[in-house]
């Protein structure tokens, strides 16, 4: 078939090898450029747990956190088993601060009433 196609000058139906090369490069570079260190992942995990436990009881030892990807993006996949939602955990942070500003000083939302620090999570380059 290939021979006939070439003989009659027909175009190959499958995507060109150049397109394929580009696609493969784009996928591999997404991975190459994602430089999440184990330390960063560990810090992220600790802070996430701190946030989540304000709202719900979670099964900490069973938390799974890993990097994954599909064809176009890198994903951080966290599997967090929830044991129980805490009573009165509904509403946004702002709503609750308005109701009772003292919540903040009581350390309900962040330890020692400090605003949470910005976590600097960045992939190595661009994008």
């Amino acid at each position, binding site marked *: 078939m290939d021979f006939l196609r070439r003989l009659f000058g027909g175009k190959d139906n499958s995507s*060109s*090898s*150049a*397109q394929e*090369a*580009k696609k*493969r*490069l*784009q996928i*591999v*570079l997404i991975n*190459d*450029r994602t430089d999440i260190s184990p330390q960063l992942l560990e810090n992220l995990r600790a802070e996430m747990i701190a946030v989540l436990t304000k709202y719900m009881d979670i099964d900490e030892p069973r938390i799974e956190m890993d990097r994954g990807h599909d064809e176009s993006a890198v994903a951080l996949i966290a599997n967090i088993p929830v044991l129980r939602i805490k009573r009165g955990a509904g509403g946004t942070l702002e709503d609750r601060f308005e109701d009772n500003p003292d919540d903040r000083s009581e350390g309900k939302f962040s330890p020692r009433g400090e605003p949470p620090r910005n976590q600097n999570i960045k992939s*190595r*380059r*661009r994008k």
Partner: protein
Amino acid sequence: MGARVIVITSGKGGVGKTTSTANIAVSLAKAGKRVVAVDTDIGLRNLDMVMGLESRVVYNFIDVIEKNCKLNQALVRDKRVENLYLLPAAQTRTKDAVSPTQMSELCDQLRPDFDFVLLDCPAGIEGGFKNAAAGADEALVVTTPEVPAVRDADRIIGMLESMGKSPIRLVINRFRAMMVQNNEMLSQEDILDVLSIKLIGIVPEDDSVIKATNRGEPLTFTQNSPAALAYANIAARILGENVPLLQLDSYHSKGFVASLKKMLGF
């Protein structure tokens, strides 16, 4: 005024770093600039062969660093053009014979006497690359339109960016316009899209590159083959001239461009 120090690098081996270094160095020298090409590939030196100066190498840059000789004793002057010098690498030493700091100091030692210091970098991302990149202000990253070369180029670009080199510009080497037209080779757009970096020139695949290396006479001395023209254009762009790129899609049109296409052998 001190020299601009430019590292020519790629990550992957065999994509044309040394050939690019030699030809850009010759082009810059022909444009009247004082140029030194430094072979930083300790143990695997080749720039001397590509430039045809191998028989005149006496000392190397490690001798300079270790103060076995003076800087100007190690510099090999290219007699074919004014103001072009080669600073060879040591052939019987290893990459760990020098440190990035020592390489930086060597570059600083060269700055006052030249307009351009071109550093021909070894393949890889280890010590040899780090040494070569340490002293550089700017970088040229050489790639070919092939998947492994582009991937490695991306890695190197990331490292150069984190080292604060600027500008970092891309040379696409061994480009085959015919194959690109048939969608069987990554186009310049594809490569730039993937790497998001500025392009400084496209060098077409050209048999005369091999012939030139056989003779040890960089193409740009004669300057009539397609690759020689491309390298001369790159040198002009380094000097800030606005030389238009040879656009692939222009090969479809007639007239001047068509004759250029014919001249380039596509």
